């Protein structure tokens, strides 16, 4: 009998192209997703070397990061962003890469449209010049972010030089309490292990609480693996995965589909396989989470208090916390709930899918956004936008006083003009709260769509469970 293997090892083994003594392994990439920000210098590199794209049919591009979320009929105002979006189109045409451009009805955030169109499939290696590529791990794919030099390598050769990561089992068992979501699972994990906790590892999320998640919720969890320091995070495929994918645009049909499912069923971790690290989280005890600081590991239950640097013994860690609280202008020992906010952002590849929009709309229905708060809702793709409008969610948002926009990364990264003003506080459903991430001087509290919507109503950081009906 062969040694039991984890899904992470199976994916690795089946993608090794060549191994040489003293060098990293050559790994084959099944799906390469490309966007406007991290690719122009890679295409320029190909031109300089006179190289072609090796497999355009395994490559797919869209525009999202610097793309405006204003109506598509309007021109792109920022000339630098416009040039970048247009450069992507030029590059895709020249190198024969399929893409959903700015005006395409299926355009959207790269990590949203991949799964939405069935580009992301179990058993694949997926890369993109974007650290949240781990999102695609929700389908049982080994998916990780790469830099622009690597984008060029994959375009040219469909391969990358990689070292095997260590395996890290994240077990989440039990049942989530009402008001507690997939976002809270991942924020709780990162608060526990810290932003460097998973460095050098790939997470496999498993356990009864993970199996119970929908595919959209699984994407939320895998999405933020990088915030825990891991290069990738994945969940073994199961019936929920196959149901989600069946009939999607790019998946095989007919006999090809049956054969694919049969292959995918061999992926889950074998009984008896072991991991380099393991952590166990009890879902029953989780609370809605929120971050208070300037990295995603600085998270607390929304009912908790801001930690005190004086209680930390490591001097560098203490200084970092002090610096974070100064930037956030928060007092140690005080509860975060009740903190006034200026902006609420619902969107990003973490939480911009239908279930996220439904959750936020469910809170806002029959309520108003507090007059002191500006709320932006940005669907992850134009497809999601249409579907939400068909369900009338846009009406709920508009009637509550929120701004309903076109698809893109928007204020997650604040490259397209959607941003916080210096000193403003936001509750955001995105994934990063670094200094200035959502606009220079802006202050971000990361939370779930439920917490974000509840806070929009009250104008202060709010525990959804305390929201009066």
């Amino acid at each position, binding site marked *: 009998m062969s040694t039991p293997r984890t899904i992470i090892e199976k994916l690795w083994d089946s993608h090794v*192209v*060549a191994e040489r003594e*003293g*060098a990293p392994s*050559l790994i*084959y990439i*099944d*799906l390469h997703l490309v966007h406007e*920000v991290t690719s*122009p*210098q890679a295409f*320029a*590199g190909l031109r300089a*070397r006179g190289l072609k794209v090796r497999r355009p*049919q395994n490559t797919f591009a869209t525009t999202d990061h610097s793309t405006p979320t204003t109506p598509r009929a309007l021109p792109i105002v*920022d000339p630098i*962003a416009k040039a*970048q979006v247009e*450069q992507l189109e030029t590059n895709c045409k020249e190198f024969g890469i*399929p893409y959903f451009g700015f005006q395409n009805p299926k355009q959207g955030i790269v990590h949203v449209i991949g799964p939405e169109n069935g580009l992301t499939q179990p058993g694949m290696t997926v890369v993109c010049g974007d*650290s949240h590529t781990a999102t695609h791990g929700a389908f049982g794919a080994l998916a990780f*972010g*790469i*830099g*622009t*030099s*690597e984008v060029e390598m994959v375009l040219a050769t*469909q*391969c990358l*030089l990689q070292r095997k990561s260590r395996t890290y089992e994240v077990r989440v068992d039990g049942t989530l309490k009402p008001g507690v979501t997939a976002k809270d699972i991942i924020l709780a994990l990162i608060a526990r292990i810290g*932003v*460097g906790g998973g*460095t*050098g590892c790939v997470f496999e999320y498993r356990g009864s609480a993970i199996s119970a998640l929908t595919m959209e919720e699984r994407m939320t969890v895998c999405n933020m693996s990088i915030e825990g*320091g891991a*290069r990738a995070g994945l969940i073994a495929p199961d019936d929920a995965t196959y149901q989600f994918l069946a009939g999607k*645009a*790019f*998946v095989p*049909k007919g006999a*090809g589909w049956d*054969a*694919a499912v049969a*292959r995918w069923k061999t992926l889950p971790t074998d009984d008896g396989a072991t991991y380099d690290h393991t952590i166990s989280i009890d879902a029953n005890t989780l609370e809605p989470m929120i971050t208070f600081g300037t*990295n995603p*590991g600085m998270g607390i239950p929304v009912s908790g208090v801001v930690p005190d640097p004086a209680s930390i013994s490591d001097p560098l*860690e203490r*200084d*970092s916390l002090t*610096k974070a609280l100064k930037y956030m202008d928060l007092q140690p020992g005080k509860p975060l709930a009740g903190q006034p906010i200026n902006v609420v952002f619902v969107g990003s590849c973490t939480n911009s899918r239908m279930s996220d929009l439904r959750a936020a709309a469910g809170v806002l229905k029959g309520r108003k956004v507090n007059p002191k708060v500006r709320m932006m809702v940005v669907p992850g793709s134009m497809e999601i936008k249409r579907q939400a409008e068909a369900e009338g969610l846009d009406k709920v948002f508009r009637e509550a006083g929120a701004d309903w926009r076109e698809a893109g990364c928007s204020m997650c990264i*604040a*490259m397209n003009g959607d941003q916080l003003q*210096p000193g403003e506080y936001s509750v955001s459903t995105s994934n*990063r709260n*670094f*200094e*200035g*991430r959502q606009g*220079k*001087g802006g202050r971000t509290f990361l939370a779930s769509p439920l917490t974000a919507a509840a806070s929009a109503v009250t104008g202060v950081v709010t525990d959804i469970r305390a929201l009066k009906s």
Partner: protein
Amino acid sequence: MAKFTTLTSRMMPMAVDNIDTDQIIPARFLKTISKEGLDKQLFNDWRYDAEGKPKADFILNAPEWQGVAILLAGDNFGCGSSREHAPWALTQWGFRAIISTSFADIFKSNALKNGLVPVVVSREVHAKLFALVEKDPQAQVTIELASQTLSLPDGTKVEFPVDGFSKHCLLEGVDELGYILHQMAAIEAYEAKKDVELNTLQPS
């Protein structure tokens, strides 16, 4: 890629943990389609005030720290976004090495591809280096890649890890793409063997 053999320099101290790539270069400067001029935005939001004037109290602006090639930074340097603009900006400014107790995975990989050497030291050595710079900002250290050693002014030598392959690329100034292109036969063989699995992307 520029070769890296030995480097002797003072160390610019930046005692902050988890310096993320949004601090190294904020996202709004990533709209460029070239690699040039990114040094102007290195640590932009720590470096310039609201009017865009250099802040006198930020170390990168201090006249006495210009030309320094080693950054001494806190734990988990380079976490966050995968933007290669971060090592591009750091090297364009003049950094050739960064010393820390740990680096984020993608940043490390990007740095090595751009001739920027991540030097990992123990907590003790890290603390000693910060103490050294505080006492004597002129103190120089030497990084020798071939022997993977960091030499302190008191004669102490500490070893740091670099994988053999990256070391070879840095010492010779060769890049990974060239190396992969030499393995086309293996890539073609793999593709032939995996034909079915590689063709499950079927636009309908």
